[in-house]
């Protein structure tokens, strides 16, 4: 499944998510639900700042895997998994667990290799049994 298909599935499944952008660890946008590319890039920059900023609060090796910034205007979610990240915004007071679950499903979906069409094997020609 490609990034745009994963995002289309996400917005279909989760009515709470207003906008979502998939990006890689380098900050390159892989897919976005926003029509405005500049807004998508701004969202990715903010997500990168949030990940970097929260990562500094921990002295150990454990990396930040997900975060939720909750404000009166809405929430910002960032989830990171195997080199890919997703940032999403919601209205205030979302169902946090459900949003995280949907975002992780989207990341997994985007990481899946697209299915190749299966080739049908030709049936082996029937060998005629020798008549006794």
């Amino acid at each position, binding site marked *: 499944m490609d990034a745009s298909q994963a995002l289309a599935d996400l917005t279909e499944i989760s009515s709470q998510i207003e906008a979502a952008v998939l990006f890689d660890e380098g900050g390159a946008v892989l897919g976005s639900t926003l029509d*405005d590319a500049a*807004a998508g890039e701004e969202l990715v920059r903010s997500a990168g700042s949030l990940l970097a900023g929260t990562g500094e*609060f921990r002295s150990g090796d454990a990396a930040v895997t997900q975060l939720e910034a909750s404000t009166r*205007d809405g929430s910002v979610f960032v989830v990171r998994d195997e080199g890919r990240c997703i940032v999403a915004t919601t209205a205030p*007071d979302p169902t946090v667990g459900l949003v995280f679950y949907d975002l992780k499903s989207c990341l997994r979906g985007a990481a899946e290799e697209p299915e190749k069409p299966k080739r049908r094997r030709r049936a082996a020609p029937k060998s005629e049994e020798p008549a006794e």
Partner: protein
Amino acid sequence: MRRKLLALAGFATGLFAGTFLYRRSSGRRRDRIDVYFADGSMVSFVDGSPEAERLLPVARRALAAARR
């Protein structure tokens, strides 16, 4: 009789004030950032902490960008 009425009025006023304060405090959501780490730990920074003061404006910018 007058003393009883005063006590009742005082009780009612206290009840009303308590309800009002409770509703006001529970109704006001505090902005915060919840961070989850790979080892399963989680930390929450509420509005007013130095960490939240630094990162909540970033989140507000992200929300504004998404709604542009």
